[in-house]
C-alpha cells in the first residue's frame, strides 16, 4: 500500500495517527498512516469530508503532535512548528486591514517584528510572478476571491519554504477560477520547485495537478490507495480532454465510491 521508501524520502510518516480526545474510547481521527514524499513531489490527498485530511496536514506542519507514530522531515523528527513550511488555507484569510503587499510580508513582520528592503523586493517579485503586481497596494476586499487566494499562496511562499501545505485551497472558488488558479499554481511550482501536499475533495483537480494522488478513507482516516499520475507536464487546459485523464479520474472515483471493488 505504501510507496516504495527510498533513502531519498524527504517527508516520512511512519504509523502516524491522531486522536483529539485523550479518552481511549473515542475514535482516532487518523490512524496508521505510512507515507514517503520525495523532494519536490506534488502529492494530492482526496477523501470524503471529515476523513482527517486536515489533521494529517497539521501533523506534517508540526502544529499538531501525532498521538502515535512519527513524522520526520529529512530524517529529523518533527516536534513543533517548522520554519520551512508554508501553509495555504481553504479561505484566503488575509488580514483585512493590510494591503496586499503588507499581507504578503505579514509572516516576516509577524515572526521577526520587521522586514527589510530586500524582503519588500522579494515580495514584489513574488507578486509579479503571480500576476498581482498591479494590485499590490489594494486592500483585500477590493480583490476577487480568486485573487485573494493567489495572495494567500504568495504569502505562503515568502519565507521560501521547502514544503508547501495546501488545505483545500480552492474549494471556496467557482469552477472556472479554480481551474485557472490551478494552472497558475502549477506554473509557480514549476518555477520554484517545492514539496507540495495538496488537500482537495475534487478528484479532477487532484489528477490535474499532482504527481501522486492519495485516497483517504472515512473516519478514522487512513490511506486507502495511491495512484501515480503519469500525465505529461506541463499540464494545460487540454490535459482535461485527454482520455488518460478521464480514465484516471474514473479510477479514483471508483476507489472512493466502492473501495472494496477497486
Amino acid at each position: 500500500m505504501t510507496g516504495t521508501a527510498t533513502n531519498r524520502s524527504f517527508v516520512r510518516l511512519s504509523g502516524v495517527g491522531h486522536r483529539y480526545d485523550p479518552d481511549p474510547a473515542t475514535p482516532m481521527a487518523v490512524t496508521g498512516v505510512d507515507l514517503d514524499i520525495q523532494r519536490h513531489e506534488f502529492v494530492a490527498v482526496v477523501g470524503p469530508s471529515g476523513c482527517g485530511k486536515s489533521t494529517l496536514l497539521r501533523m506534517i506542519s508540526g502544529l499538531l503532535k501525532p498521538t502515535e507514530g512519527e513524522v520526520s522531515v529529512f530524517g529529523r523528527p518533527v516536534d513543533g512548528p517548522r520554519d520551512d513550511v508554508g501553509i495555504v488555507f481553504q479561505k484566503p484569510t488575509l488580514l483585512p486591514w493590510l494591503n496586499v503587499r503588507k499581507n504578503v510580508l505579514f509572516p516576516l513582520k509577524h515572526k521577526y517584528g520587521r522586514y527589510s528592503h530586500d524582503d519588500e523586493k522579494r515580495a514584489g517579485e513574488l507578486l509579479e510572478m503571480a500576476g498581482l503586481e498591479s494590485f499590490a497596494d489594494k486592500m483585500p476586499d477590493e480583490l476577487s476571491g480568486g485573487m485573494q487566494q493567489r495572495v494567500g499562496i504568495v504569502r505562503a511562499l515568502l519565507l521560501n519554504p521547502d514544503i508547501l501545505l495546501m488545505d483545500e485551497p480552492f474549494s471556496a472558488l467557482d469552477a472556472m477560477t479554480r481551474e485557472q488558479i490551478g494552472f497558475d499554481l502549477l506554473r509557480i511550482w514549476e518555477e520554484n520547485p517545492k514539496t507540495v501536499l495538496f488537500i482537495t475533495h475534487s478528484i479532477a483537480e487532484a489528477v490535474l495537478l499532482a504527481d501522486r494522488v492519495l485516497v483517504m478513507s472515512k473516519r478514522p482516516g487512513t490511506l486507502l490507495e495511491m495512484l501515480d499520475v503519469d500525465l505529461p507536464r506541463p499540464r494545460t487546459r487540454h490535459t482535461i480532454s485527454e482520455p488518460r485523464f478521464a480514465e484516471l479520474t474514473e479510477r479514483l472515483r471508483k476507489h472512493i465510491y466502492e473501495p472494496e471493488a477497486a
Partner: protein
Amino acid sequence: MTATKVTPLNPVPEPETEPSVAEAGAPSRPILQVEGVDKIYGNGTVALKGAGLTVKQGEFVSLLGPSGCGKSTLLRIMAGLGEVTTGTVKWWEQDYDVVGSKGCKLAFVFQNATLMPWARVRKNVRLPLDLEHVSSSESEKKVDDALEMVGLKGFDESFPRELSGGMQMRASIARAMVTEPDLLLMDEPFGALDEMTRNKLNDDVLKLKKENGWTIVFVTHSVYEAVYLSSRVVVMAARPGRIVDDIKIDKPYPRSPDFRISTEFAGYCRQVSQALERASGMGESKENC
C-alpha cells in the same frame, strides 16, 4: 473534436433511450419565453442586455458563465422575482398571473438550502403546501412521497441543523417538489457542496427529472456539471450580462455515470470550455474572474 478514441475502463452497456417529453413527438410547448430582456439596476449597472431564451417542455437548460454575467438575475426574472427594465417574459405563453394555476407551477431551489431553522424537516418541506392552504391529510401524503424520493425518509422529524449539507439540499429539493412543479428553477444548488456529494446529487436530480418529467433551468459554475446534466448549455458573458452561446448536448436521458468518462463527454466539455473562455474574454475586465 479530435479526441483520440480510447476504450473505457468498463465497457458501458448502451443505455436504453428514454423517450423524453421533448422528443416524444408531442408539440413541444414553450414553457418559458424570455425576449429582449434588459435589466439595469438603480446604480446604473447593466445586469442583463438583450437576453432572449426559450425553454421548452422537458428540457434541461443550464446557464453557465463567469461571475457577474447575470445568470442568477436571469433566473430570478424567470421566477418572476425580479422586474425587467425592458423586454418581455412569458410563462406558458401567458403573463405571470398564470403561474401557480394548474399545470403552470414554478419551484425554485436556492444556492443554500434556505431551510427555516426553527422548523423540522417535515414542516419545512410542507411549507409551500401550507402557503397554498392544502388540507393537511393531502399534504402529509405529498410530503411523505417527496421525502421518500429524495431519500430523506426517517429524517422528517429532524431539525435542519442536524442534517449534513447534502441532506439539507435534499430537503430543499423535496420542498420544491411537493407542489408538483412544472418548471424547476435551480440557482447553483450544489455550489456549496463538496465534489463527491455534488456528483451524487447530480445523479439524483437526473433520476427525479425522469420520474417527474420536470423541465429544469439550472444555474451553475461547473462545466462538467452543466454538460452532465443538461440538454442545452446556455453560455453567458459578463458586463453587460448577455447570452453568447447555446450548445445542445445531444445525449439522450437517462444518463449514467459512465457518460462522464466517455469521449463524447470530454468533447462536450471542451466545446463548452472554449465557449466559456470566449465569453470570459469578451468582458471588459479579464482579471476580475
